[in-house]
């Protein structure tokens, strides 16, 4: 296998630009001297094997990316994503996205070595309606039928449901609260969804469903970033986003479920109570009621400003019970990094079954090897 020094140089300088790292930052992160960095980026010298491994460690990718021309990292996707949404994504958010993509790739590997394949056949829906909102709703109805859900059935765990379809779903905090989520098509891991953990868990459920629509219907695009509806980046004319909202609304609150609600005058109390019961925010419920002409615009306008479910009522079920305040805080930190119980379970199962080393598990869990014992305990696992 021949090594292309110019291609390597280009990848290095472009990756450094993607993460807005100046040479000093880069030297601090890698321990590679500045004159050496310049020579590597100019294509004047060939890197050592250690330098290639260091770069793969820093940029959280397969080292093969730096030594071959194979597409083993979503490099073009992140480059275009950061270029197009450069102002909306801080440097920390760019690293968060890169770590999310790393988790997606690791999850794909773990599922493969553990022999756990999607339990549901792939869902395929070809957009067919010029009326985007209706097409989104029809796609969600088709997905519910594909999953064998009853027409009135509530979805308890939308994250698990999407994972069963073969999607990579991670909840990860982003600094920019205007970004509710994003979809990326990863060359190795497939269809990947990031849900901003900074939002409340009900909003995260809606975002996951919304991003799933992009994953299923907008696969021709390498990525889609979704902004909060109140954000300056959000546009009422963005038909793809409108379709994704209609999809999410129909998936979580199908027509039959909403139609069955008592025909009452909607008040702060009953909107909140029912929304809480089906784990959506009241605004989502009101939009769905409006779709079916079960609430009038004046009532929505009246309730919208005041209706809110207290954040403490929207408990993230993954935090669990029986933890001390310190443990709960540490677990929340891990969840915010994207380390769900599902993913952590896969890592420890692979370790237990002898597929991976502890060093590899530490890399996959974004921590040091000595921290593994503590992480295992927080997720109810024992590290032998």
């Amino acid at each position: 296998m021949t090594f292309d020094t110019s291609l390597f140089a280009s990848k290095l300088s472009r990756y450094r630009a993607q993460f807005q790292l100046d040479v000093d930052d880069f030297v601090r992160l890698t321990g590679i001297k500045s004159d050496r960095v310049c020579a590597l980026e100019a294509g004047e010298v060939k890197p050592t094997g250690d330098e290639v491994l260091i770069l793969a460690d820093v940029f959280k990718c397969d080292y093969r990316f730096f030594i071959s021309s194979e597409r083993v990292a979503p490099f073009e996707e992140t480059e275009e994503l950061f270029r197009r949404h450069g102002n909306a994504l801080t440097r920390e958010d760019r690293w968060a996205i890169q770590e999310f993509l790393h988790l997606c790739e690791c999850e794909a590997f773990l599922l493969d070595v553990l022999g756990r394949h999607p339990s549901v056949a792939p869902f395929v829906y070809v957009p067919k309606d010029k009326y985007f909102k209706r097409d989104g709703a029809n796609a969600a109805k088709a997905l519910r039928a594909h999953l064998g859900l009853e027409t009135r059935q509530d979805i308890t765990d939308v994250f698990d449901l999407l994972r069963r379809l073969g999607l990579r779903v991670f909840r990860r905090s982003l600094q920019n609260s205007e970004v509710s989520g994003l979809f990326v098509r990863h060359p190795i891991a497939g269809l990947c969804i990031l849900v901003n953990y900074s939002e409340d868990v009900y909003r995260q459920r809606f975002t996951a469903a919304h991003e799933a629509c992009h994953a299923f219907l907008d696969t021709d695009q390498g990525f889609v970033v979704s902004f909060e509806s109140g954000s300056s980046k959000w546009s009422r004319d963005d038909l793809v986003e409108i379709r994704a909202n209609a999809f999410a609304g129909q998936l979580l609150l199908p027509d039959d479920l909403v139609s069955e609600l008592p025909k009452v005058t909607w008040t702060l109390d009953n909107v909140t109570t029912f929304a809480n019961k089906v784990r959506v925010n009241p605004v989502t419920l009101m939009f769905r009621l409006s779709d079916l002409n079960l609430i009038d615009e004046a009532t929505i306008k009246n309730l919208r400003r005041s209706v809110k479910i207290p954040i403490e009522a929207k408990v993230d079920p993954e935090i669990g019970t029986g933890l001390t305040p310190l443990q709960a805080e540490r677990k929340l930190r891990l969840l915010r990094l994207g380390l769900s119980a599902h993913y952590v379970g896969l890592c420890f199962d692979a370790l237990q079954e002898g597929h991976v080393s502890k060093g590899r598990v530490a890399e996959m869990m974004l921590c040091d090897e000595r921290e593994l014992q503590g992480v295992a305990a927080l997720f109810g696992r024992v590290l032998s």
Partner: protein
Amino acid sequence: MIASDFDPASFEIVNVVDTCAVWNLVSSPTLYNSARAAGLKACVTGFVQYEALVKPRTSPTAEDAELVARASKAISTKEITVHPLDIEDLQDIEVLRARKALGRGELSSIVFAKKVNIAMLSDDRKATTLAGEVLASKSRATTTPRLLGWLLFYSHLSIADVEVVVQEHQAMCRPLEPHFRRMVEIIEGYMRVARGMGGGPRPV
């Protein structure tokens, strides 16, 4: 981690050490100094040096800082030498196949051990298993408890010294104490056999 087929006579004194084993090696000055005095030659790859000394830690403790200081001193005084890998070493088919199963430090250490035909010191079961398959002989994949066993068997350390090793090791929050104790049992068994008292090592 400790195999019943451990033969102290086959322990090799030139070793490339992975990151985790670096911490275990320097965790106990008694173990480390005794190993050096007995002739152990330890080296690391450039990647392991980065992982041990440069890579930011997610939640460093006082013990981490102490271990980093000890490793840094050992490397700067060349007690532990640093050696580079070539790109071609990473293109080896066996290495490519193992790359997703091992941490990068473990992988780089196996690569270097294979390249220069020396032993690899690692305290991870998966890493030592793969090293045993890739290197010239199984005994080329060794562990810190085996290093202790070798030192005990050739009287570079006494059984009484093991308590000091364990205390020092535990003070640095390292996890090998049960494996050290099992190794003591194995070596005591060998010694009984050597003295003609019967009772070989208990299989593990």
